[in-house]
C-alpha cells in the first residue's frame, strides 16, 4: 500500500506542475487506527482498520471542480474529472482565490509513546480499567468507554508549488456512566483527546471517577425553572459559549457575499465590553484544533476576532480573503481529504481578564454557576449551549445542584451582558468536535476563564 501511495504522490507532483487552470490542489491521505468500545460488562467492539483517500480541486475560469476517490492508483482519471467538472460551469460571477506562497515542509506529531508501539493488550487493559471505574456503583445502569487512535499521513500539493505533509497521530478516550434511579436515567460523559501518543490517555483515573460521581450526583439534582439568570460560566462552558456565540459568526464564508451581513460584521463594530478579547489560533501544536497548514496549504495564524470589545478580525479561506480584500488566516479546513475545505475555527478562546474566580463569585448575590458542557448550536444570531450541570449561587456561595441547564442567547445582546472575565483560562478538546456544512466532527479546541454573564435565558418549566 505504501508503495502505491508514494507512486501516486509522484504522479500528483507531475500533474499539478502543468495543470491548465488558475489554481489546483491535490490532497492524499493514508491512515490506520484502532478502536475499542466497552459497555458495562460487554465488549461492544474491538477493531483495527485502515483507509486511503484523495481529492483533486481545480479552479478554472472562475469555477471549482472537485473529484474524490479511494482508488488512488487512478489519479490521472480523477484529475481529468475535476477539470471536466470545472469546465462544465460558466459562472456569471467568478470564484477567485487569494494567492499563497509555495511552501515545502514536513510536520510530524511529537508523541512520547506512539500508539502504534503500544500492544492491543495494553490499550484494552487501560480502557477496561477506566470502564471498571465508570461502573463503580450499583446505581450505574450502563457505561460506555471508548478508546481510539488514528495515525494519518496527509500530503497536500498545489499549483503554487506547495508540497506539504503532516504525519499526524491522534489519540483519545470517551468515558460515560449512565446512572438510574426508578424511572430516571441520568448520563454523564467526558472525552479527552489530542495530537500525540498513548501518553495522552494514560493516568486518567480521575476523569473516570469524576464521570461516575457526577452521574450519581445528578440523580438527586433538580431541574432549573425556566427564566433569565445571572450565570457564572466555568472555563469549559465559557469556551463553548464563545465558539457558538461568536466563533461561527467570525467565519467569513457567512459574510463575504452577503451585503447585509458585511454591514453588520464591519471591522470596528462594538460587540462587547472592553474586557472582552477573543482569539482563534491554529498554530498551537498542543491543542486539538492544531493545523501546521490548512487544507488550502496556507499557514495557520493567531487571529484576534474581538479586541477590547471591538470586532477586529475574522477567519478566512483563500476565496473569502480575496473577496473581502483581507489577509488569509489559514482557516480553510475539511474533515478529510474527500471533503472540500470550508472556513472553520481551530483553537478558539476568550483571553484572560483581570478578575479572580473569587471576585466573580463575590459579585453574584443571586445566580447560577453553570459547569461542564453537553454541547452547543448556533444559527449565527441566536445560539444555545448546554451545561453538564450547575449550582445555585447565593451571596457568592454555591448551593443546590441543578441539571438540565440549557442556556440560550442572541449574539447582539448576550456578549454585551458579559460583566466579569476571570484570569484562570483553560483549553479543552475531546473526541467529538465541531459540525458545519455536513462536515462533522472536526477537531477543535475551545476555552476561556470563569466568566459572569447577566440576563441569560434558560429554558424550563
Amino acid at each position, binding site marked *: *500500500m505504501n508503495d502505491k501511495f508514494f507512486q501516486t504522490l509522484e504522479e500528483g507532483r507531475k500533474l499539478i506542475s502543468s495543470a491548465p487552470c488558475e489554481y489546483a490542489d491535490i490532497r492524499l491521505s493514508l491512515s490506520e487506527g484502532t478502536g475499542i468500545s466497552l459497555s*458495562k460488562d*460487554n465488549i461492544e*467492539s*474491538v*477493531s*483495527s*482498520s485502515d483507509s*486511503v*483517500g484523495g481529492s483533486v480541486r481545480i479552479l478554472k475560469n472562475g469555477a471549482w*471542480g*472537485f*473529484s*474524490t*476517490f*479511494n482508488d488512488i492508483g487512478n489519479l490521472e482519471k*480523477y484529475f481529468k474529472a475535476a477539470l*471536466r*467538472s470545472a469546465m*462544465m*460551469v460558466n*459562472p*456569471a*460571477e467568478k470564484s477567485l482565490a487569494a494567492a499563497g506562497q509555495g511552501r515545502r515542509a514536513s510536520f510530524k506529531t511529537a508523541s512520547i509513546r506512539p500508539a502504534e508501539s503500544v500492544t*492491543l493488550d495494553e490499550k484494552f487493559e487501560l480502557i477496561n480499567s477506566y470502564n471498571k471505574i465508570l461502573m463503580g456503583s450499583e446505581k450505574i445502569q*450502563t457505561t460506555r468507554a471508548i478508546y481510539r487512535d488514528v495515525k494519518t499521513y496527509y500530503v497536500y500539493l498545489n499549483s503554487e508549488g506547495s508540497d506539504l505533509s503532516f504525519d499526524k497521530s491522534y489519540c483519545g478516550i470517551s468515558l460515560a456512566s*449512565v446512572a438510574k434511579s426508578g*424511572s*430516571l*436515567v441520568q*448520563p454523564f460523559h467526558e472525552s479527552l483527546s489530542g495530537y500525540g501518543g498513548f501518553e495522552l490517555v494514560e493516568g486518567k483515573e480521575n476523569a473516570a471517577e469524576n464521570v461516575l460521581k457526577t452521574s450519581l450526583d445528578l440523580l438527586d439534582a433538580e431541574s432549573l425553572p*425556566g*427564566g433569565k439568570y445571572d450565570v457564572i460560566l466555568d472555563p469549559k462552558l465559557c469556551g463553548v459559549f464563545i465558539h457558538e456565540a461568536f466563533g461561527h459568526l467570525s467565519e467569513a464564508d457567512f459574510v463575504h*457575499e*452577503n451585503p*447585509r*451581513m458585511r454591514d*453588520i460584521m464591519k471591522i470596528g463594530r462594538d460587540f462587547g465590553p472592553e474586557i472582552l478579547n477573543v482569539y482563534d489560533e491554529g498554530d498551537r501544536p498542543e491543542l486539538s484544533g492544531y493545523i501546521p497548514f490548512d487544507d488550502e496549504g496556507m499557514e495557520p495564524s493567531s487571529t484576534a476576532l474581538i479586541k477590547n470589545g471591538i470586532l477586529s478580525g475574522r477567519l478566512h479561506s483563500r476565496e473569502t480573503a480575496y473577496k473581502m480584500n483581507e489577509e488569509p488566516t489559514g482557516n480553510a479546513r475539511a474533515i478529510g481529504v474527500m471533503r*472540500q475545505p470550508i472556513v472553520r475555527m481551530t483553537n478558539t478562546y476568550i483571553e484572560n481578564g483581570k478578575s479572580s474566580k473569587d471576585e466573580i463569585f463575590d459579585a453574584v448575590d443571586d445566580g447560577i454557576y453553570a459547569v461542564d458542557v*453537553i*454541547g*452547543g*448550536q448556533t*444559527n449565527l*444570531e*441566536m*445560539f*444555545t449551549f*448546554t451545561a453538564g450541570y450547575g449550582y445555585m449561587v447565593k451571596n457568592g456561595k454555591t448551593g443546590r445542584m441543578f*441539571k*438540565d441547564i*440549557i442556556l*440560550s442567547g*442572541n*449574539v447582539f445582546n448576550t456578549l454585551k451582558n458579559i460583566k466579569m472575565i476571570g484570569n484562570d483560562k483553560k483549553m479543552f478538546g475531546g473526541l467529538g468536535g465541531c459540525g458545519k456544512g455536513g462536515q462533522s466532527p472536526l477537531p477543535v479546541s475551545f476555552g476561556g476563564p470563569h466568566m459572569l454573564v447577566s440576563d441569560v*435565558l*434558560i*429554558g*424550563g*418549566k
Partner: protein
Amino acid sequence: MKNILFSAVPKDAAWFDAVYITGRSTPISFKNNRIYSVNESENSGFGVRVNMDGKTGFSSTNDPSGVADTVRRAAATAPYGEVEKFKIPGGTVKGFDPHDSSIDLFDPKEEIAAAELFIRKIESAFPSINVDMSVSASAGSFRLINSQGVDLEYIDSLYSVSVSCSYVVKDGDKIDTWESVSALKPIDYNYLSDILINRIARGINREKLASGTYPVILPPSAAARFLGIIASGLNGQALWKGISPLAGKMGEKVFSDSLSLIDDPRIEGSPYTAPFDGEGINPSRRALINKGVVEGFIADLKYAERLGIDPTGNAARGYSSLPSPSFNGITMDPGSMSFNEIVKGIELGIVAEQFIGLGQSNTLNGDFSANLDLAFLVENGEIKGRLKDCMISGNVYDLMKGNIILSREMERKGSSLLPYICLDGVSFTA
C-alpha cells in the same frame, strides 16, 4: 473478491460476514445564489466480521487491494471480543433493487440551469436573500457475503436537493430556513420555492408571547425530531441496556390513544429502502406503538438474540463499522383533522418549525429544551408572525401521554412519513 475473502478466513473460523459497498455521486453546489462547484465522487469500501470460538473481530478498508489483510486483521482482533450467540442467516432473498434507472438521465448542465431559475424565483421575492443549494445524483451497490452461503447484491439510486435560505431582515435579525427532497430519480422540486417564500414572508413580522404553557404544532420534519427521541427508546440496544424509559413496558399503555408508531421499510416514494438489512435479514412492517400501547421494537442479530426475539431486519451497516439497530422508516396512522382545522382550534399557541439545541438535553429520559430558531404565533385560530429569542422545554414521553392531535395530511421527509402533530401544554420561556 469472494475468492480472496474465502481463502483469507482462517479454517477454524465459526462464521464470517462481509460487506462491499460502492458509490458514485455528482453533487452540484450553489453558494450565495450562484453555482459554486461541480463534484464527482467515487468510493468503495470493504468491512468484515470474523467469529473465532464464539468471539467476533472486525476490520475494514477502502483499499481495493487490501481485502486479504483486512480479513486477517479482523480474525486477529476476535480474541478480544466477547462471546456472541446469534446465528447469521442463510436464506436471505433479494426482492427488489432500490434503484431507478432514470437516475442516469441526471444531466449536470440541465440541473444547473434549473437550479439557477429556482434561485432567481426566490431572489425575486427577497432581492437581498442568500440561497445555498445542493443538487445531487448518486448510485451505488451493497453486497453481502457470508459463510452461510449468502452472496447477494442490490443497487441503489438517490436524487436529492436541499435548499437553504438566509434572509437578514434588519440589523442582525435573521431568518434561516431550509427544505429538501429525496427520491430514487430526478423529480420536480419547484414547489419548494413557494413554501420557502411564504415562510420567510411570515417571519418578517415579529410577535410576542408571555412565558407559560401552550399548545405547539410540529410540522412533519419537526415532528420527526421529537418522535426520534421516543423511537430511540424502542431501539433494542437501549432496551437491553435498561436505559430506555420503555424497558419492561411491552404491552403497557404508555402513550395517548392517538399515538400509533410504525417502522415501515417500504414507505411510498422513499429512496431509503433496502431488500435486506446489513446482516441479511429481510425487513417487514412493524407496529412499535399501537393506540398508545408499546407493541414492538427493533434489533439487529446481536440484540435480538440477547432480548430473545426474532431478528427484525433493522441492522444498519456501513463498511467501516459493525452493524447496529436502526429504524427503516418511521410512520404513523394519520389523524382526522386537517392542519388548518387544528390551527383554527387554538386560541393561543405556537407552530414550531426549526430549533437550535434540540437533542442536547437528557434525551434518554425524553427531556428537551431548545431555542425556537423559527416559530410562529397562533392567535385566535390564525397563524401570525414570528416568535424569537425564546425557548420551549418539556418531556416528550409526558407530552405524548397527554392530549395530542394528528393531522390527516402526511408528508415524507427523508425516510419518515408523518403528519403535523399538536402537543398540548408545552413550556414556553421568553
